[in-house]
């Protein structure tokens, strides 16, 4: 399952954007950030912990998006 950003919590600080190994995080027109579910690999294959979760200053902002299946390493 990819991660998603809870827009209500996001401050738009941009800290997560450069940390994503898959360039899955992008800025939205209202100055917040969002994750492209097709690009997010949950950081599997890169890091032990999802980078967006580890760097985000607001708890429960980068969370698992349960609408999608788990990411399968190829």
């Amino acid at each position: 399952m990819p991660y998603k950003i809870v827009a209500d919590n996001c401050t738009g600080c941009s800290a997560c954007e450069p940390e994503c190994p898959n360039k899955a995080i992008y800025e939205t027109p209202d100055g917040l950030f969002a994750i492209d579910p097709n690009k997010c690999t949950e950081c599997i294959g890169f890091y032990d912990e999802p980078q967006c979760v580890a760097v985000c200053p607001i708890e429960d902002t980068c969370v698992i998006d349960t609408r999608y299946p788990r990411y399968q390493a190829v």
Partner: protein
Amino acid sequence: MPTANLSSHTVRLDELMQKIAKHKGCSSSGKTGCGSKAGSGDLPPEIWEKVKNHPCYSEEAHHHYARMHVAVAPACNMQCNYCNRKYDCANESRPGVVSERLTPEQAVKKVLAVASAIPQMTVLGIAGPGDPLANPDKTFKTFELVAKAAPDIKLCLSTNGLALPDYVDTIQKFNIDHVTITINMIDPEVGAEIYPWIFYRHKRYRGKEASKILSERQLEGLEMLTERGILCKVNSVMIPGINDQHLVEVNRAVKARGAFLHNIMPLISAPEHGTVFGLRGQRGPTAQELKALQDKCEGEMNMMRHCRQCRADAVGLLGEDRSQEFTLEKLRTQEVKYDLATRRAYQELVEQERKAKAQAKQQELQALAGTRSELKILVAVATKGGGRINEHFGHAKEFQIYEVSATGAKFIGHRRVDLYCQGGFGEEDALSTILQALGDCHAVLVAKIGGCPKAELKAAGIDPVDQYAGQFIEQSAIAYFKEYLAKVERGEIEHRARGDAQIRQGGLLAGVA
């Protein structure tokens, strides 16, 4: 704007500074009056050259020169218990909090507009709202563009230090000669109380482990910078019960690694800011607690007491927030022409004024020579800048506090009062908060004051003085002190110690980043 006011015989500024330093007994005691406070003092010439026009580093310069910050760095790589990263409101001003985020290109436009309108703006800083080195591309792009467009502006940077060792070479390459590092502890046990986590090398660390890494990185970065001759200031937030005693050790550690100034500032922690400390009811220090700690550290190295903890995007002379004049909206419609000639002319005028001021103080000090009194009093001063007593009592948003004794006048800090006047409080409430903020002062020196506040000040034991209107601050403070001493000796008044004062919460902070 100050006007030149030179008396007939001119003395070279550096000679004068030497005399003042000698007079204050720098070489013998080493305790007070050294370094940035009295002009060049005992600083090595290359350091004095770097700080003399820097309002954040030289107490003497901050009367005349200004710095601005541009908010190009929103991301941070750690969390502090005195910071609420969600906070972003134009009506509130707290450390690292600004409401406008700029791209490097927008930031440069703003810098040029401000520098052309305010010739005393000589320093550009990047301090946040996050950590500049957690946004290296934006930070260094901004410096690069400004250096190209306005080569006379000095560049500085404030950081929490976590990423610092990785960027020391870049900092040197971009000719950034002032760096401020916020160091609140050197002991991970203490750090664990201040920092819940850091993000380092792709991992989130918590607790003591986080603070251990942070402290190592901060001290390593500091050492690397000073080795390269880059001027370093250390900021520390004084948090009573957590790091207040420990900051004496921090002071020693940063001095040993070549930090040039140590700025201890009070924790600001109102609950409405929503910070961990604010919500937990962690209090900030009182004015006397802060001063006692600063005094304790002063023997160790230069202490900076003029930090007003201004907003990260404050514009204008320190504390005088003119940022609303230069919003993005206004910049979009504005043509900017960089006026280097006017800036040079203004700065020359300021140099003359600074000489005159130093000279006036020197004369007054000579008159005090031979006085053998142990008395010390604090006086508050209302000023608009330029080192003169030139503000009406009722218009003052803040007061500058000087400690005056037989050895001279020493600047010890600012007391903000304006915030109390907002939000529907009546005049009387405003006055009582001023009385609280000046509770430890014997006198307040103003350009003018109404009859009503005059009477109330007197009743509270604070002498309202308008006889030095328009004159230089330190000279006047010393003159007032002489008169005070004479009255005490003649038995006209009785010298009494005064109480403590409150440090206002909320408002105006920047230096934390």
